[in-house]
């Protein structure tokens, strides 16, 4: 165990052969790949199954569903089975109706002759088919667009305000010396130790006396003064040389102009990191929106998912599709911006 865990370099001699510890490592990583991605992949695959395919047990990984054929003389497409006819030959037949244990079937090529088959003698013909119905019906059957819009609105607006407020504060705390500055910095950082979970009731009072209950701003406003954002940006701005500011002051630039024309563009990398984090925080928020937004027309995606998993216990096909849509933005962030997230965690230990 200890042996393979501590080997940080490959074998010096005989590079071509892998040491057994390397095999164990790759096996561990492969197991990790299955455990970490497997559940998500299973969910995504399931979301493309039709309702009837979802109720099959044992379930299949790929979205197989029963093949259907259009037969002349029947309005609806009929389900296709592989069945034994009276002569004991196995043929692909479409089922017209079923009464008790006897199914009435027809050959799609000869729709006139009906064949009676015991239901024990037929097997459904399955085909691989990605059903998009779960997704398209979401928008028609539920006010899914509203939830999506609420989530997007909260995420975008809160992130923009967070960037503005936090960068202003970080600028003041890194580029000025004024009395009380240290206290302000300590106060802001101290809020790191006051998680929202311990001030739920009074924060609810504040929001309700401001008339912001069941209002998207009630979710946005308390979230915009993130201590991690101030800390991250301040550390970055400290590395910007003061001479730049002095030069600008010589040219008679106002302090506000210095902030947005000089500091903000130079702090862009740190701003990008904060933007990504803020995006994820707000998109994934749950407890606070759950308390503030109680009417369904104000639900965010997360709240809608929570509400539906209680109500629609039997309607997993919609719930699965909705879950997949909710995880798409985060997956995109993960795919393209992972590097920045790793930087953020390494430099400020935030999440």
């Amino acid at each position, binding site marked *: 165990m*200890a*042996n*393979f*865990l*501590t*080997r*940080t*370099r*490959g074998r010096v001699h005989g590079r071509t052969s892998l040491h057994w510890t390397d095999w164990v*490592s*790759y096996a561990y*990583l492969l197991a*990790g790949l299955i455990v*970490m*991605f497997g*559940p*998500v992949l*299973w*969910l995504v695959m*399931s979301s493309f199954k039709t309702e009837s395919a979802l*109720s099959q047990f*044992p379930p299949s990984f790929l979205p197989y569903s029963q093949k259907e054929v259009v037969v002349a003389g029947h309005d609806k497409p009929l389900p296709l089975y592989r069945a034994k006819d009276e002569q004991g030959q196995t043929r692909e037949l479409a089922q017209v109706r079923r009464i008790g244990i006897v199914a009435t079937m027809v050959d799609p090529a000869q729709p006139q002759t009906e064949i009676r088959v015991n239901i024990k003698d037929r097997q459904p013909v399955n085909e691989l088919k990605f059903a998009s119905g779960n997704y398209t019906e979401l928008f028609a059957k539920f006010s899914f667009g509203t939830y999506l819009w609420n989530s997007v609105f909260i995420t975008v607006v809160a992130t923009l305000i967070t960037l503005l407020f936090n960068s*202003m*504060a970080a*600028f003041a705390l890194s580029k*000025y010396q*004024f009395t*009380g500055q240290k206290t302000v910095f300590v106060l802001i950082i101290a809020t790191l130790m006051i*998680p929202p*979970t*311990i*001030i*739920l*009731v*009074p924060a*609810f*009072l504040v929001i309700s006396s401001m008339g912001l209950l069941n209002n998207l701003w009630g979710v946005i406003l308390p979230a*915009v*003064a993130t201590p991690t954002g101030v800390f991250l940006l301040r550390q970055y701005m400290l590395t910007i040389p003061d001479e730049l500011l002095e030069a600008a002051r010589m040219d008679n630039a*106002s*302090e*506000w102009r210095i902030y*947005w024309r000089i500091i903000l563009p130079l702090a862009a990398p740190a701003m990008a990191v904060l933007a990504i984090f803020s995006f994820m925080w707000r998109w*994934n928020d749950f407890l606070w929106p*759950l*308390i503030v937004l109680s009417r369904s027309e104000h639900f965010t995606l*997360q709240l809608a*998912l*929570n509400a539906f998993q209680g109500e629609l216990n039997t309607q997993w096909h919609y719930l699965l599709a909705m*879950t997949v849509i*909710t*995880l798409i933005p*985060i*997956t995109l962030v*993960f795919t393209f911006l*992972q590097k920045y*997230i790793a930087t953020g*965690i*390494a430099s400020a*230990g935030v999440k």
Partner: protein
Amino acid sequence: MSVFSAFLGFFFNLFEPVFRLGQKWLGASRIGWLFVGPNLVVIGIFTFLPIVINLVYAVTGGVNLLPTQRPFTGVENFATLLECRDYTDLQSCRTDIFLRSIFNTVKFSLIQVVLMLFFSLVTALVLNRKIIGRGFWRGVFFYPVLLSPVVVALIWKWLLQSQGVFNAGLVTMGAQPMEWLLDRHWAFFWVVVVSIWAHMGFYTLILLAGLQAIPKDVYEAAEMDAAPPRRVLSRITLPLLMPNLIVVLVLVMIRAVQTFDEVFVLTGGGPGSATTFIVQYIYLTGFAEQIHLYGLAAAASLILAVGLMALTLAQLRLSKAGEAGKVKK
């Protein structure tokens, strides 16, 4: 792009006069107050003011949200939460669900912290080896960290439901299918598994950063001395990683104590109260039940706050001790 920057310019220029005036009145350095102002106001209204009001709620009763309309009850709320006739028997407590939730939270946190440390350490050590495609593998373990708690819970609920993939596995092995989330022990087990699955990547990343900060020459020296790998791990890697391990330990504890979202969606706290944790108790008492007992919820959050403060102090103590130890070496 030029439209965008023109818009940005227009937006920022709106504030120019305010700050010109501020500069005139406050002077060149005290204008910092103007910059830090918006952030401070938000923190003041939504964090510091609530801390004070929370104390008021904790010592008043009734069901009114307005603090001025609430009768003073002293320590009654705390007594309601904590009083038991016989402390060895949770049934005899006035609010047995609260003490049960504390018990569950502590049990959950202790089990989770051990497993989390073990798995994130092993993963970080494996990722720190010379492997092909390290970035990819790191990403594999990190991906669930970014998912929302609700999504995480639903993913696992789907796997664990009665016709889910785990039951399919059981059936193909010839066993009976289970109702995983309706058995109190299994439900607790899966809550632990899911929270480790969801958060392990974050701590792995912290430990990996710590491992990569260990200077290479220490390992080279050990190689010169032909130190066996077991000893390299116990004498070099682990001691030098200790500060990061402590950070992870305390972070895991602080997070675990506040666990709510995933568990709430996955099990709803059940079956019975088997997976009801403190934050869920606060949420239920203050907001979800028919009668909103804000006083009890506030008192419970004060008790939670004390626990969190103790953990934070422990972290400061431990990391100071760790630094002192480092200097000695």
